[in-house]
């Protein structure tokens, strides 16, 4: 009796296997058609393949790397904030603007020859690094500060800084503050900032070092901080300089009412691209895209000058960078005119700055973001 049943079971199992093989054959023929539509219930994007775990993204890195993946896909997945004025924000017509968005476009122009071949993913501060680690985004341009712990611990690398930011304070000139005020003048003031950020830690550490007494009030988000400052609840507010300047330009009641100090920020916040660790080919591509915009800026090559630069009007270095010799870019796995596309479609560093940071009142001259030839920190290795 048991034997019969066992045979029956085996028969059923065999028929199941046969049936599944038939179905698998149907499925197999489908998969080979390079459709990648393995998943019916979800919208399929190419990034999904690499988004399902760490081991996966390592595999991808081994066979061809991010560069090959981006070239095969035809679009660059770029992580941005989407809600950071001047860095990356959504315009009324739905397009993404800002310096970070422009650097996404620059990388797309270098890799794919088309600055518009970008898919922007808006990431919150909490999501951003996971998105890089899992490969959901190829590169992260989300005003992220380059720190030792982030660079070494979380499995990602930082590219060259595109914007040197730093924490500053803003107060009312009516309270006796000026642009040359120092931090110890805020003794006894109510200082406001947003909760749970490093700005909070920075200011309280500094206060204890200087031995001054401040009342620190924190708010859930930055809009509330500025509202409280306008309402007079806060004497001083503090966050990254770029954030202060933007609000001063937009919301200051009368010019000169608000002042930003100290001239030297109380913290260093270098912001730049972030990408997954251990993919040096991709790292080179992103890094040299940033460098290309800096070198073009140093040589005064704007987007309208690219043909002249290619012809050698701006010297041999620019000609090489624009693809005059070709080899420099092709060795990296890019086309010879990769950086020609970057400069012609997006622009050099100064143009990117003028388009995004000047409108909110940020001045490049005299800041750390000036070119090294003008006393700033923007310095690119030579292209040769």
């Amino acid at each position, binding site marked *: 009796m048991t034997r019969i049943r066992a045979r029956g079971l085996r028969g059923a199992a065999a028929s*199941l296997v046969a*049936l*599944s093989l038939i*179905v*698998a054959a*149907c*499925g*197999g*023929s*489908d*998969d080979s*058609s390079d*459709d990648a*539509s*393995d*998943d*019916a*219930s*979800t*919208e*399929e*994007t190419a*990034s*999904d*393949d690499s*988004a*399902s775990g760490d081991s*996966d993204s390592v595999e991808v890195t081994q066979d061809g790397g991010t560069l090959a993946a981006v070239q095969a896909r035809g679009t660059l997945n770029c992580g941005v904030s*989407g*809600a*950071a*004025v*001047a860095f990356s*924000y*959504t*315009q*009324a*017509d*739905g*397009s*993404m603007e800002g310096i970070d968005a422009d650097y996404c476009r620059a990388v797309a122009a270098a890799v794919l020859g088309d600055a*518009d071949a*970008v*898919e*922007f993913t*808006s990431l*919150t501060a909490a*999501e951003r690094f*996971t998105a890089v680690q*899992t490969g959901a985004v190829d590169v992260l341009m989300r005003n992220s500060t380059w720190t030792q712990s982030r660079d070494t611990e979380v499995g990602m690398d930082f590219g060259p800084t595109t914007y040197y930011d730093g924490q500053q304070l803003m107060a009312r000139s009516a309270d006796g503050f000026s642009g040359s005020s120092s931090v110890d003048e805020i003794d006894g003031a109510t200082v406001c900032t947003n909760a749970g950020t490093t700005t909070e830690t920075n200011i309280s550490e500094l206060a204890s070092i200087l031995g001054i007494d401040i009342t620190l009030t924190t708010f859930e988000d930055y*809009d509330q901080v*500025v*509202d409280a400052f306008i309402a007079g609840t806060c004497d001083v507010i503090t966050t990254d300089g770029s954030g202060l300047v*933007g*609000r001063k*330009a*937009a*919301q200051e009641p009368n010019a000169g009412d608000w002042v930003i100090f100290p001239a030297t920020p109380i913290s260093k916040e270098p912001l730049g691209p972030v990408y997954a660790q251990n993919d040096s080919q991709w790292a080179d591509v992103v890094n040299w895209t940033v460098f290309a915009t800096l070198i073009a800026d140093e040589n005064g090559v704007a987007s309208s000058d690219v043909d002249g630069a290619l012809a050698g009007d701006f010297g041999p270095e620019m000609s090489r960078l624009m693809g005059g010799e070709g080899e420099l870019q092709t060795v990296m796995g890019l086309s010879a005119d990769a950086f020609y596309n970057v400069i012609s479609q997006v622009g050099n560093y100064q143009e990117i700055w003028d388009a995004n940071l000047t*409108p*909110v009142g940020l001045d490049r001259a005299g800041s750390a973001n000036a070119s090294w030839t003008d006393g700033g920190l923007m310095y690119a290795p030579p292209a040769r």
Partner: protein
Amino acid sequence: MSDVTMTPTSPSNGASNRTSPLQWVRVNLFSSVSNTIQTIVFTAITLGLLRALLGQAFSEEADWTSVSTNLRLLMIYNYPADQIIRIWVSAAVVLLAAGLSLGAWKVEPGYTVGRLGRHLVGLGLFSLVTRLLLPVHAPDTVRTWLIIIGVVSLVAGVVVQRGDPDGDRVMGFGTVLSGVALTFLAVLWLVPFGQYGLVDGVLVAESGTTVASSTKVPWTVLLIIVVASHRVGIILGRALGRSLRAALAAFWVVGPAFVIFVILRDPAFDWAHVWSTDIPIAAMFGLGGAAVLYFVAAPGKTEVARAVGAMLFAFALFNWVAAFFGWYPMLQKVRISFLIFAIVVLLVPAFAGDRSTRRRVAGGWVAAMVVFHWLLTAINTESTLVITAPPFLGGFVLTVGIAYYVMLASFPLGVLLSLARTSKLPIFRVMSTGYIEVIRGVPLITVLFFFSIMLPLFLPKGMGISDLAAVFAGYTVFSAAYMAENVRGGLQSVRRGQYEAADALGLTTVQRTSLIVLPQALRVSIPNLVGQAIAVFKETSLIAIVGGFDLLRIANSTIPNQPDFLGQKRPGLLFISLVYFVFAYSMSKSSQRLEARLKDAQAR
């Protein structure tokens, strides 16, 4: 004002509350000293609140250009501007179906001419009071318009009310619909709306025109479609009756998916692939499945059906396990189709019958498979849209789309869960109770985080889930638990005798449940289910936290970060609260009407 007091009273109508306004005021508001004090105090508070709200809306720093400029962003987010006709076509399809449905089901609002008059008088008074309370900064056009609206509707209200002193002249739905449409059109064409968008000194939309003119024509067409399709629905409803209603019901299940994935998403079908793979698979499941169903739906084949169904079910489950371990590749839609097929085969003996029944079962299966596979293929095909920041849905469209499909998907799931919870089989009862209690014990935000962040990590290799799909799954799972409890309340109201009567007729469990118990239980739980639907609609605002761009996120973080509108949150938030309120309130109103109608039906 004096016009109102001169409204003729109907002294004979003492039983109803239709007295003169002055009398009504005396009886209801100033009947005693304490009532008078309460009336005065609460009127003062209400007026104070209104004044505060108006002060907020028209304060010097409140600049509504942030909303008017970003109106398109709020409605459709970054849907490509050159494809906007797709949005209008989608709206037309949905409104066409809505009009036809209202006609086919002969929905009557029970709105009387007298009530219209009262509402108009109320609107007129409200406008005039608002005009009086306006802060000094309010623009002159607003003052003028408020006076015009106030006086016109006051006079119109009084005139209309005279036409129906007894309040028993019921207006047909067509009339109400036409009236609403005409009012809307008048507002659209007469009220000058603001410019469409200055960004960095460049007009991003139709330069030199206004918002209204860019949407005037489409809206006019849409409103004509609604009114006309309502008429057509009534006429067709008379001619076709049940079959039209069945077709419309089917549309409301599949149609919105069609709208989203075919019209809005515009898949670029790879026809070679469709012919070589998609159509053969659909044909295999459709025709093969129909043959099997035709065979097992015969009376007396119950045992065979159970055996075949059980085998298929085991195989389907095995497929999913295999998928999880990545044993052999198979198209996901084949797996899903197998599972659905197995469940249908298991259920079908309950509806076994003569040749025509069997033919209907088989035909229904073929139709379902055609639609199902077509949609799956559309969903799986790359979109032709060029979207710089996917997904392609955002803003109000996302809010409505997600809310609708969560309601639709969580309803059957909720019914199944409630049935399982009231089942006699302990395993079902324990599992269902566990599920419901766990989900109800966890905040929605946790469930959403789990689905958007954790779920992708649990999926087998090579299988992905888009953000929107993950959020949709999370909402559905959450909402289903609440739906289940609502339906369970209904199930408990079905009397014992109904079960016994069904058993006495010799009905099987499935037949008893689907034909006798559920129809009664669901009718009782409809008000609660609508309440749950409203909750789902409002809870969609949590998408913002897990990465979607719904109304709230756009108003709360996108607009205040545009250089032109830096830090301007209030106008956007006020605007979206108005949008949420209008929709939630109309849903709640229609639920009240439904409730009243069901009460009537039960009393009869």
